[in-house]
């Protein structure tokens, strides 16, 4: 018996009410598919934000836990002297102080606020290496002695996107805090929001503009080697506790390794995934109830038809199969729409992540996932159909014929 042809016919005559019950399966499958499509992409994108720097790099920032009454927890900044002291540690190869400041920059008579990051004169190459693969896309990199000059992140380049309505090319002048600076180059696209939208500037120039003295925003440290990274972290913490006179557990600074940062980000991502999977499970459960409901109604509506089928020789098993397959098809349709919706959502999600983080992640279409989703939704549907199909099969032919 061609159960599939028969069930397609029956599905065609179903009312909108029946289709609405598919929403559960649809949302459930869409959630799973979009999650997996976005999820892997999201991880790649987020990791690339941090992965831009090599894994031996440790970042130190002032702040962290502060005690005492509100208002007393002012942040005591790190200083250039701290950096020098850290660099003396045997487990540390390099320690470079950097300042990240907010300021206004004017170009083409348009003023915008943005970030400027300092480079220490003579140590530019070390910084570029620590931060990642900093190379010039146009012009050249900011070099030693480049006072009164700046290098710009990639997102400043294109006039259509940079907010200045005009491309900023090497050789042009920009006004930072009303002082004129010459642009020496544009950095290659890094795929990281932070790195692509920063103004690179000599430390002394930035100090002149802001006046932070010896204070630094962060200290970037390179451990001797990958294996000594944990020891370097411990040494730095010990040193800074002494220098800043704080006890263990009361640190007013933070020494973070990329690995630890990645871990915490990934745990957040995993949390989001679990949340979506819970929503998907609930949706699918509701979907199952919906299909049971639709199919039970269908059995009642088609009671007479069941009677006719039995009168002309249909066995109980054949009646069962008809409703069972039909229910499975119902699930399959819900799943198929869900997959399409999920993929669309996945693409939109990846697009959003890319435009937010400036990354270039590609959505990952997982054909095995699609296949399993289709099989799964058919199974969900047919499992939901077992009970109604049994109801249909055990109808008494005479009673069923009365309708």
């Amino acid at each position: 018996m061609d159960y599939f042809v028969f069930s397609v016919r029956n599905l065609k005559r179903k009312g909108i009410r029946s289709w609405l019950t598919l929403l559960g399966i649809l949302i459930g499958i869409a959630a799973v598919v979009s999650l997996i499509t976005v999820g892997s992409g999201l991880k790649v994108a987020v990791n690339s934000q941090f992965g831009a720097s090599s894994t031996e790099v440790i970042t130190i920032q002032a702040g962290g836990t502060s005690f005492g009454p509100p208002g007393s927890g002012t942040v005591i900044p790190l200083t250039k002297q701290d950096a020098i002291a850290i660099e003396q540690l045997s487990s540390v190869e390099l320690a470079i102080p950097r300042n990240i400041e907010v300021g206004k920059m004017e170009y083409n008579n348009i003023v915008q606020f943005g970030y400027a990051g300092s480079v220490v004169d003579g140590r530019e190459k070390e910084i570029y290496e620590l931060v990642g693969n900093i190379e010039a896309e146009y012009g050249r990199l900011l070099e030693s002695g480049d006072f009164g000059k700046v290098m710009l992140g990639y997102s400043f380049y294109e006039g259509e996107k940079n907010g200045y309505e005009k491309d900023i090319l090497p050789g042009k002048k920009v006004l930072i805090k009303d002082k004129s600076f010459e642009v020496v180059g544009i950095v290659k696209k890094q795929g990281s929001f932070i790195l692509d939208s920063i103004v690179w500037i000599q430390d002394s120039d930035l100090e002149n503009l802001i006046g932070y003295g010896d204070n630094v925003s962060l200290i970037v440290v390179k451990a001797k080697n990958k294996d000594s990274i944990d020891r370097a972290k411990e040494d730095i913490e010990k040193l800074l506790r002494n220098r800043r006179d704080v006890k263990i557990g009361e640190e007013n600074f933070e020494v973070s390794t990329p690995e630890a940062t990645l871990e915490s980000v990934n745990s957040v991502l995993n949390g989001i995934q679990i949340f979506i999977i819970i929503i998907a499970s609930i949706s699918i459960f509701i979907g199952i109830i919906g299909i049971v409901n639709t199919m039970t109604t269908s059995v009642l509506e088609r009671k007479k038809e069941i009677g006719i089928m039995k009168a002309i020789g249909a066995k109980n098993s054949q009646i069962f199969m008809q409703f069972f397959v039909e229910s499975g098809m119902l699930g399959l349709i819900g799943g198929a729409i869900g997959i399409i919706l999920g993929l669309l959502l996945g693409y939109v999600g990846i697009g959003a992540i890319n435009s937010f983080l400036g990354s270039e992640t590609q959505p990952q279409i997982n054909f095995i996932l699609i296949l399993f989703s289709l099989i799964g939704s058919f199974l969900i549907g047919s499992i939901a159909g077992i009970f109604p199909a049994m109801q249909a099969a055990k109808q008494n032919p005479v009673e069923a014929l009365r309708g």
Partner: protein
Amino acid sequence: MKKRGEEIIRLEGATKYYHMGEVIVKAVDGIDISINKGDFVAVMGPSGSGKSTAMNLIGSLDMATKGHIFLDKEDISLLEESDLAQVRGKHIGFIFQQFNLIPTLTVKENIMLPMTLQNLDADEREERVQDLMKKMELQEREDHYPSQISGGQQQRVAIARSIANDPEVVLADEPTGNLDTKTGERVMDFLNKLNKEGKTIVMVTHDPDLAKKYADVVYWLVDGKVKKITRKKR
């Protein structure tokens, strides 16, 4: 093939009781019916006389509370529902007053359905369905749905469906009940033609003229019992 005149269906003290709450309704109360191969049998009686229940028992659609029902010497009152379905599918064809076609299937598919249920292969089904549509003059309507054709045409589809698996017996429950006189006559002519070709026809009707005109044997039922049997001389 059995020879004309040999017994094909026999009801022995067949009884069907229904429980209606506390009350037991004796729809059919110990009837004996014997139907021979090739007979055109009419079961007559006023409404509530149990004639439809009797037909359901003859057609193995319903199971008797008491008594025995023999189809071709086999006691089918002892069979399970699934086996009864096989008996119906192979040996008995049903025609109903309400036509009872499947609305989602076309004329052709409706006629094919009993063959599909018996897992006949596609080529044979196609060949037979073409024959049947030709016989019932339905070729022009093969892709129509039941709602798109007239009552008379629907009943002809039902007749074609009833003989799709070439059963020995065709049971017709008020086959003209929903048709006007002229269309009804046409349907009766088809049934009569089937009978002439050797099919055993059992027809339930409350129309004495119809019974008189077509039936060889008429069973008169009153209150669930056989009150009278009349035989036409051939």
